């Protein structure tokens, strides 16, 4: 068994409005920065053990599917690295 770190990045789907991103865009513009668009999301880092990288990815995808992202409004991407 190997120690893995999975990084799951969750963000609102493209068609879902992101009012936090809009507020951040407005704030950046108020600092004089020429911002076209901002999208916000969250990053969730999980440590666990798995037999290999493929199994670790499967587990991390399951975490995203079953809890970390709501498929109605969000999408997620997974990165897995051995420690």
């Amino acid at each position, binding site marked *: 068994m190997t120690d893995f770190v999975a990084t799951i990045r969750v963000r609102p789907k493209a068609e879902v409005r992101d*009012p936090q991103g809009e507020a951040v865009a407005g704030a950046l513009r108020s600092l004089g920065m020429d911002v076209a668009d901002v999208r916000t999301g969250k990053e969730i880092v999980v440590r666990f053990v798995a037999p290999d990288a493929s199994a670790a990815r499967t587990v991390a995808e399951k975490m995203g599917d079953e*809890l970390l992202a709501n498929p*109605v409004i969000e999408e997620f991407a997974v990165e897995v690295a051995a420690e």
Partner: protein
Amino acid sequence: MRIAVLRFPGTWSEVDFAHALSLVGAEADILWHADADLRGYDAAIVPGGFTYGDYLRAGAIAAISPAAAELRRADREGMPILGSCNGFQILCEIGLLPGALVRNRHLEFRCDWVHMRIENDHTPFTAGLRGEIVRMPIAHGEGCWVADDLTLARIEANGQVVFRYTDERGAATVESNPNGSTANIAGLANTVGNVVGLMPHPERCSEEMLGGTDGRKVLEALTASRHNAQAPVPVQ
């Protein structure tokens, strides 16, 4: 009539609901989510609050509680289930209601009174109330209901919108929408009509001293529904 009121870590409206239900002659038991058994109850209520601190997403962690499986089982048997505020968010996260509730468009937490039009009376919570304009309090930061266009069209076509934010005359205006919710949707039902969720708090407007009594109509509709207890009527 015996009604189960669920309590999760961070639920805050369960005692108010039990009190409001006592005002309409119902017997309410507050059940802890981890071992809630809904068998023997006539209805279940998922009250408002900030379950699990709203961490991850509002209602997301409550939605994997043992109570979620119990609510799914009760739904299959047609039990009337009402979710208010965080309870509405939980029912959407569980998948008992369509769509999702996200951050208010203006990013502000809103604690206010709103008006709504009741558009569907084929639910145990709104029987006989179609067309009524009701006034109830809200207190939420994530009450903006969203869904993809297809889901929205299906919900409107099925008449699943139960409560729509309006002005006091019943017009669904931009100004009367407190959170930017799609199509001014304040509350909706599943296709059968036994499960209803809404962002406002009926339990907080069930007696005069609280500034309004329209919430009592919803609870009275539920207690009256037992007199003609039957399988839920599909929405039109």
